[in-house]
């Protein structure tokens, strides 16, 4: 047993080691130093810009010179409630709601199958199959739908081959959802949005469903509940937090988008486009800021409600 007999060399006592002494002694200082660079970046660069921009919603624009009048006023915020602007808001919220419902309907079977029936291998494959489109290029995905929805494109061709050309025509002839072709209709816009945000709905719903204990479903079955009843009374309520969590994404992402409506959709403006035009060609920053407050406000309300349903555990 020679171990205790000799002494080891002391570690070199450099500048770093002395700096380390200070940091170890004061854990709070360490936390602060770690936090400082990212906090400065986000606090200054991001929050700063955000407040400066949004703050302008209390200014107004001089109608003759087109310059910003830097006096606090509620006039710009009230302008949101003018019929034309209210139209834009309601239209955007309507589209967002439609996209959210459609996403939930398509996502549920995928999430349910992956959570309840898939073995580990299939589950991994499902996961990748959902993740890949989620992380694929946004523009590429939009472009894919432009191809499909074009008048001369694949959907029209398949409809013709399947003898559904008449049905497609009839759908496009409907008011509101219709239009000259799918690529310039609300139908096309909602489809594209649904496609874009679907993975954001699948993942939280699957996470929520995976937390439903299988024996709960079996127990309900044992008690004589029909499958439909089990679904309505057991599975659906337990999956709800996941659906709400997914809806946060689908709703907010649709609410703020201005590129899809620009490429696929009607000439009627949605919120994102309105903001874009207002800050650009119209040069009305105060109104653009006022419009920008709407999605932030809607999301704040949404998040507060979601917090109560426990949706955040499903994120």
């Amino acid at each position, binding site marked *: 047993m020679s171990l205790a007999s000799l002494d080891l060399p002391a*570690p070199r006592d450099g500048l770093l080691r002395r700096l380390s002494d200070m940091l170890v002694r004061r854990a709070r200082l360490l936390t602060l130093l770690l936090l400082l660079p990212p906090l400065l970046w*986000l606090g200054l*660069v991001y*929050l700063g810009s955000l407040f400066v921009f949004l703050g302008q919603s209390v200014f107004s624009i001089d109608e003759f010179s087109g310059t910003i009048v830097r006096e606090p006023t509620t006039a710009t915020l009230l302008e949101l409630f003018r019929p034309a602007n209210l139209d834009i808001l309601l239209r955007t919220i309507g589209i967002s709601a439609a996209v959210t419902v459609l996403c939930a309907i*398509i996502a549920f079977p995928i999430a349910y199958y992956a959570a309840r029936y898939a073995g580990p291998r299939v589950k991994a494959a499902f996961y990748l199959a959902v993740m890949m489109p989620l992380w694929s*290029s946004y*523009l590429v995905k939009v472009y894919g739908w432009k191809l499909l929805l074009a008048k001369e494109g694949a959907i029209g061709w398949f409809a013709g081959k399947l003898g559904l050309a008449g049905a497609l025509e009839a759908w496009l002839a409907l008011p509101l959802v219709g239009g000259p072709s799918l690529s310039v209709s609300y139908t096309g816009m909602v489809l594209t949005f649904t*496609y874009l945000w679907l993975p954001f709905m699948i993942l939280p719903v699957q996470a929520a469903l995976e937390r439903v204990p299988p024996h709960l479903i079996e127990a309900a079955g044992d008690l004589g509940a029909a499958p439909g009843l089990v679904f309505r009374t057991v599975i659906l309520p337990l999956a709800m937090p996941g659906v709400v969590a997914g809806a946060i*994404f689908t709703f907010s992402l649709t609410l703020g988008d201005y590129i899809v409506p620009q490429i696929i959709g009607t000439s009627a403006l949605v919120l994102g486009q309105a903001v874009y035009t207002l800050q650009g060609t119209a040069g009305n920053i105060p109104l*653009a800021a006022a419009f920008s407050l709407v999605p932030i406000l809607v999301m704040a309300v949404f998040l507060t409600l979601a917090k109560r349903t426990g949706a955040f555990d499903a994120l």
Partner: protein
Amino acid sequence: MTRAPLSLKIAAIGGLAFLHIPLLFILLYCFTTEEKSYAFPPPGFTLKWFGVVWGRADIWAAVGLSLKVASIATVLALILGTLAAGALARARFFGREPISLLFVLPIALPGIVTGIALRQAFGLMEIPFSVWTIVLGHATFCIVVVYNNAVARLRRLSPSLIEASMDLGADAFQTFRLVVLPNIGTALLAGGMLAFALSFDEVIVTTFTAGQQSTLPIWMLSELIRPRQRPVTNVVAVLVILVTFLPILAAYYLTRHGEAVAGAGK
């Protein structure tokens, strides 16, 4: 395991097909001979568009700019995201919740709001548009991706490992280099790859922070609004899919044990 009802199976597979078919069509249209419309089925097939893309300087300039921006933004996000994760993974202090919310905010709020806010700030401070103005915007929303990955891994790292290292004579910096970094390395790599993919693909914020510069998504956007040679756009789109696909796949394999690829979102 019980067998799934047939209708459920069909609905699930149908849903997944819905997610993938549009991407297949993009690939298909790379080879069409028709360049003025999206006629289906394509009247003929050709490989010439790949050659056209190869010869287009504007595309390669855009690719170069995108790669440059994504690289710088990723490095910045890695540094800032790791620092933030190190500070917030375990510490409990007043103001912790609002600070973590702040990191998520850039992807939680619509990109257009972030974009206009940054553009306004650049205008106010008279900062001319450059690679750095784009990077500034991208790093802002890439931080959270790195942060989420690093925080998840740090929380699984037993605190006694750090104590053991110091107990054995390592100072804080040695401990970070020899114990913490090797244990969170793959999570950082995964976060970095996702950040890269996110930046490479970003268009909404970039429209406001790029000025006259053209990243690849900006180039694509202008092609979508005013199409010229449509199949050229398809070839570029496939290129973009590949560039983002590989890092995401790699990130998945690096983190699949126990944690999901965190921090989704545009």
